[in-house]
């Protein structure tokens, strides 16, 4: 790989095509991943490079797609199954949570299920209540499933590459609002380790812990806080929610004494709750304020762009909340 400017989408494709070149057991399967090239174009042209036996267009059968990936992973393949929208995870939850996640344990450690389930979520396309959700909370609450959610072009590439090395099932959730984002892949920069959070911005006053597209909202908000309101916020990109890297977060929160978690998923019972609870448990004596949750509203997503945009955290809301913390 040479240093290159690319997009989140193409970085994902690069990771897939490199993995398929390096390892014949890697296959891609899902709805429209072949001839169509993927609903969001991530698998474009892979079928001409690797053929229809390794880039497999499936019927619209989400449950069996995941189930077939489980069986393939148990018998020597490294399947990358694609779920076109994370909103369709409901159809697959039995195969994902009762089978993929538990097989190693139930069978006493005889075998793992080294599969990757690629999917995408989030708002931004007026796609309505069944095509705009952020359902990582279901996955994080399921022991046995790894969970990666790249926010940057670099991580789209490196996390997917690393997911394909994991011995256990990985749910890999992209954000539909990031596919066209540009960034640079530099082979000379050592990638962050799998399972490690990254501090994308330092800041002594407040620690913002987030992931996926909200990383960019948090960074924009932190800039504004710094320039307009004199608040210096650190921004931590979790990158993976399982494993969860608390070691990176702890010292920052202990130092700043204030933390905010930002998630596009609905607030109640979601990822933001886990992060807030965890930070509080581990850093209680250092906290000046309760850990603040800025998360998706406890409602479905509307097709109306106005309602859609305001159903999830915006940079404005992050700034506004931080200002209240220091009011």
């Amino acid at each position, binding site marked *: 790989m040479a240093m290159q400017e690319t997009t989140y989408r193409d970085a994902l494709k690069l990771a897939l095509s490199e993995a398929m070149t390096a390892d014949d057991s890697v296959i891609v399967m899902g*709805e*429209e991943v072949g*001839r*169509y090239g993927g*609903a969001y174009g991530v698998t474009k042209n892979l079928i001409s490079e690797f053929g229809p036996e390794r880039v497999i*267009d*499936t*019927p*619209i*059968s989400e*449950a*069996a797609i995941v189930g077939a990936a489980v069986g393939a992973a148990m018998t020597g393949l490294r399947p990358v199954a694609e779920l076109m929208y994370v*909103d*369709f995870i409901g*159809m697959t939850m039995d195969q994902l949570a009762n089978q993929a996640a538990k097989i190693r344990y139930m069978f006493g450690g005889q075998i793992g299920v080294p599969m990757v389930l690629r999917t995408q979520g989030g708002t931004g*396309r*007026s*796609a*309505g*209540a*069944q*095509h705009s959700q952020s359902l990582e909370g279901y996955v994080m609450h399921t022991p046995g499933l790894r969970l990666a959610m790249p926010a940057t072009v670099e991580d789209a590439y490196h996390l997917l590459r690393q997911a394909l090395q994991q011995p256990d099932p990985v749910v890999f959730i992209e954000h539909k609002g990031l596919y066209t984002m540009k960034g640079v892949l530099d082979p000379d920069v050592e990638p962050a380790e799998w399972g490690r959070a990254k501090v994308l911005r330092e800041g002594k006053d407040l620690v913002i812990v987030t992931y996926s597209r909200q990383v960019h909202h948090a960074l924009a908000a932190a800039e504004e806080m710094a320039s307009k309101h004199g608040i210096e916020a650190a921004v931590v990109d979790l990158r993976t929610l399982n494993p969860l890297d608390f070691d990176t977060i702890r010292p920052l929160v202990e130092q700043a004494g204030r933390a905010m978690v930002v998630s596009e998923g609905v*607030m109640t019972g979601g990822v933001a709750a886990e992060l807030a609870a965890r930070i509080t448990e581990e850093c209680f004596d250092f906290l*000046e*304020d*309760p850990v*603040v*949750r*800025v*998360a998706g*509203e*406890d*409602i*479905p997503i*509307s*097709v*109306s*762009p*106005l*309602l859609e945009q*305001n*159903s999830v*955290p915006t940079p404005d*809301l992050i700034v*506004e*909340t931080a200002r*209240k*913390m220091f*009011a």
Partner: protein
Amino acid sequence: MKNSTLPKLYEDMRRVRTFEERVGELFVRGQSAGSMLHLSIGEESAAVGVCAAMQDGDTFTTHHRGHGIFLARGADPNRMMAEIAGKDCGYCHGKGGSMHIADMGLGHLGANAIVGGGIPAVVGAGLSARHQKSGAVSVAFFGDGATGQGILYESMNMAALWKLPVMFVCINNQYGMGTRIDQATANPNLHERAEAFGLAARTVDGLDVEDVAEAATELMDGARAGTPAFLAVDCYRFYGHARKDKSPYRAEAEEDEGRKKDPVLRAREKLIEAGLMTEADLDALDATVAKEMDGSIDFAVAGEEPQMASMFRDVYDPSQPEPEPVRVRLDRVLAQG
């Protein structure tokens, strides 16, 4: 020839065709809510032919490509277009959009953005009809792609087992996104599956709306009497899957051929041949329809955005408290400090 229903069937199909063309226009004007707009051009006979067999009080669910079906059941195109634009005056106050239009008054239990998602509801509606002795049939409309979803078979099995007044209508436009039906199944004779579960089942060519109406009527009457049914209507998706798809996966020759299966054109020809309407009559009718549908665009564009406050409404019944907005909660939490 007197009492022919063809003029009405033609008019209904023309209204669907023109409405869908206007939806495309709304998108091009940048005034639709998003681009997930699935046009049913080429499938008019399925919508109109099957709906001709339905009666007041019957209920139905549709898929993501359901505008035409609902129009054929009597929808107000203004409120449909407004919903597609995400406006407050739309059928769902701008919350649903193209893929979630519903209207309880007309028995429309809802369009669905989940392939197959609306199918089992008709089993429940069939239970209600039986319980209430209402004589109603409930019809699930879905695409060929939904035959990949297990819930279709679970639902057909229940309907057959319980002899419910239920009908399954598969609009086989040959494609699920970029996948041709023979790339999604080894046996594209879809009605054979329904037969194996014990339903009355047929496939009909969608070119001629009268054929569709006839097949649908026969099966629907049977369903009403307790023999649940399945009807596949063969047609062709004239354009891309959604507004932005240019169908690069289809050969031009195939598309040209496929678009020859045009039920609107066919009905027009038949009307003229049979002397039921003249070319001039038809042009006049088409113009009236065009005007009506132009009006729908105007209505939609003029409509207001939903109010921000409506965001928290209707998650639960109005008798219940609304969910607390994040801002309100944060104010309370941070007021402590």
